[in-house]
């Protein structure tokens, strides 16, 4: 029986969790995600991307900070707000964008769409469209590491909306019972579609939601990439040591609607503006980089390069052909 964890604590040494080079690398990935998502929003407006499209703008620091804690062979799984996770895992923006446009050059050859992309090579296990389902699946990724007795860790992301689901707690129970190496990451962006966390959850501190199962946890400023990394390192180390799962609540914010078709009438424009102006993760990282001696011009060059890369992805996503009609019937079953 594990001892009851401490109440959620502030992560330690966040300012020292990344040196200048690492922070620049993190900033680059965060900016890539933002530029990618802005372009995806634009292509959606042009009718080139259809269906559901959930943008990650505002939350970039969470996935990038966590990714900096991982090593070769670790796994990542998340919900349908997944473009940022894929880019952070190192998946090619061209393949992701071409999946958004439903083209044969996409990661799922056009058959998955925004919510369903995977890359075994990069350790990305989707992209899941059913709220909460990936929490049990991510527990299974952790299970496979436990079964194989390696020291790999599964990062399992979900929103604060999913955090009310039964299968989340079934998973917490299983993983702490079996001491599975799973870091559960609640991306608390405050709104489950249009329902604020206060209106949906009786739990006032989501970081404590693992307490009945004896799961240690941290509440983290998810708008600060260094704070995310500091907390992530503690969680990952706990898992690698065979001590079971760890829960992180990332307090974050999405600037865009739940999906492209969400007018976001459930919050004020001022609220969004305030977050963007005062808590933006990219602004914070940029300010720190300037303090550390980088100059504006270098960062501008970096941004231009990323914009060009995203533009290239957008062009690929429009020029890549649609899947052949015969693709309709492939990949239903593995033919043995």
């Amino acid at each position: 029986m594990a001892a009851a964890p401490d109440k959620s604590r502030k992560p330690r040494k966040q300012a020292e969790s990344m040196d200048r080079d690492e922070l620049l690398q993190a900033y680059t990935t965060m900016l890539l995600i933002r530029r990618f998502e802005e372009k995806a929003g634009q292509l959606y407006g042009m009718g080139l991307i259809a269906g559901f499209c959930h943008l990650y703008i505002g939350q970039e620091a969470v996935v990038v900070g966590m990714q900096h804690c991982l090593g070769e062979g670790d796994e990542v799984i998340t919900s349908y707000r997944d473009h940022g996770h894929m880019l952070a895992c190192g998946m090619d923006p061209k393949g992701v964008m071409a999946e958004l446009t439903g083209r044969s050059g996409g990661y799922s050859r056009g058959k998955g769409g925004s919510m369903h992309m995977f890359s075994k090579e990069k350790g990305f296990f989707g992209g899941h469209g059913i709220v909460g389902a990936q929490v049990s699946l991510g527990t299974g990724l952790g299970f496979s590491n436990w079964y194989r007795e390696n020291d790999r860790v599964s990062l399992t992301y979900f929103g604060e909306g999913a955090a009310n689901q039964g299968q989340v707690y079934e998973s917490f129970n299983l993983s702490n019972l079996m001491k599975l190496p799973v870091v559960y990451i609640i991306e608390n962006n405050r709104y489950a579609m249009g329902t604020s966390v206060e209106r949906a959850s009786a739990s006032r501190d989501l970081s404590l939601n693992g307490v009945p199962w004896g799961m240690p946890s941290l509440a983290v400023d998810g708008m600060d990439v260094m704070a995310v990394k500091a907390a992530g390192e503690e969680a990952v180390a706990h898992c690698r040591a065979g001590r079971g799962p760890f829960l992180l609540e990332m307090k974050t914010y999405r600037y865009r609607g739940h999906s492209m078709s969400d007018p976001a009438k459930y919050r004020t424009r001022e609220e969004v503006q305030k977050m963007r102006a005062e808590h933006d993760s990219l602004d914070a990282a940029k300010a720190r980089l300037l303090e550390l001696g980088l100059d504006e011009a270098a960062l501008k060059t970096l941004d231009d390069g990323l914009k060009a890369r995203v533009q290239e992805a957008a062009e690929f996503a429009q020029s890549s052909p649609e899947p052949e009609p015969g693709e309709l019937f492939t990949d239903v079953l593995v033919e043995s």
Partner: protein
Amino acid sequence: MVDILMPALSPTMTEGKLAKWLKRPGDAIKSGDVIAEIETDKATMEVEAVDEGVLNEILVEEGTEGVPVNTIIGRMGGDEAEPPAPAAAEAPKAPAKAEAPDAPAPATPAPAVEPEYGETRLMTVREALREAMSLEMRADKDVFLMGEEVAQYQGAYKISQGMLEEFGARRVIDTPITEHGFTGMAVGAAMNGLKPIVEFMTFNFAMQAIDQIINSAAKTLYMSGGQMGAQIVFRGPNGAAARVGAQHSQCYASWYAHCPGLKVVAPWSAADAKGLLRAAIRDPNPVIFLENEILYGHSSECPVADDFILPIGKAKVERAGTDVTIIAFSIMVDVALKAADALAAQGISAEVINLRTIRPLDIETIAASVKKTSRVVSVEEGWPFAGIGAEMIATVVEQCFDWLDAPPVRVHGEDVPMPYAANLEKLALPQPDWVVKAVKKLF
């Protein structure tokens, strides 16, 4: 004097072995004393006395096998101060034998011989399933078994008996009673390359996990453009057992067979169970493996060769005939074969097809038979609406319309939740005479 009766110790038990007497004639018995041990086909159970008194005589000696439920196994004298109670053992007054779900072994039809698979030995479906899992787990360390009570309890239906001891706790894993969570966990493990066998205590409970089975296991291969699938078997008893009521008596064949991305298998005989479960474990796709609790204890000849395995997607003609084709799966193959016997006595030669696999359906075998007989009856335990019978008959009509001499007929479970009362339950489930009547409509 109070009769001590052979108790029924499970919903499907019709007989058992009187393993041991713990009291001798002349011994005083107090309420709660263990008086005997009885072996069912699932477990060894202790029988406790309800009444106080003295054991007067033993009528069935220990070691006797196949003692039918309600046999008088001993007698005891009641306390002088009190009138004797109606029954001494803890056994409830079981219903009359005639209402038991299925007559014991002799009435069970035997499967058709398949000489191509070599030497056979008599074994139960339960043993066949255990052997299939054990063989595959010995051969492939990525295969493991998880579910409720599969390990320390030795299996709720004793399928996994002894497997914990052989394979250890990392490969035979007890789960909490949380189907949604542990099924998702197993599917995640499969996405990462392991090959789980998930035992559901019954498929009724898998409804809590059906999102993970359909949305995660069955669809991921397609959604990932072929990159990532799930090699996983979901198995457990499906359909009605005996007297367990509406929430525990439902056939899920058509639920799962509806979905692309899944294979659905339903064994009948021991050979089916062993050969198909091995194939299911090796299949790179998610496979729903629908067993039947009543069949677990049924014995039939099963090939012993190390490499015995049956192909998924291939039906078997269990009985050749010329006048009508009867198609069935799982325990309904029993019903179909019994009907075929009755029909033979009336001069009608019925061909009985055991589907073995429901999806993909072996249309070739069905069509070849119907083109020969020109008449067809489907038999299933499940409900009729959008059922497997509906699918089979639609397919037959599409493919064999010009060969048919009469409209096809479906025999199926009645379109009601399963009642508890013994007589009503019997009225809800297809019986051989239903099939006989259905066939006779065609002539």
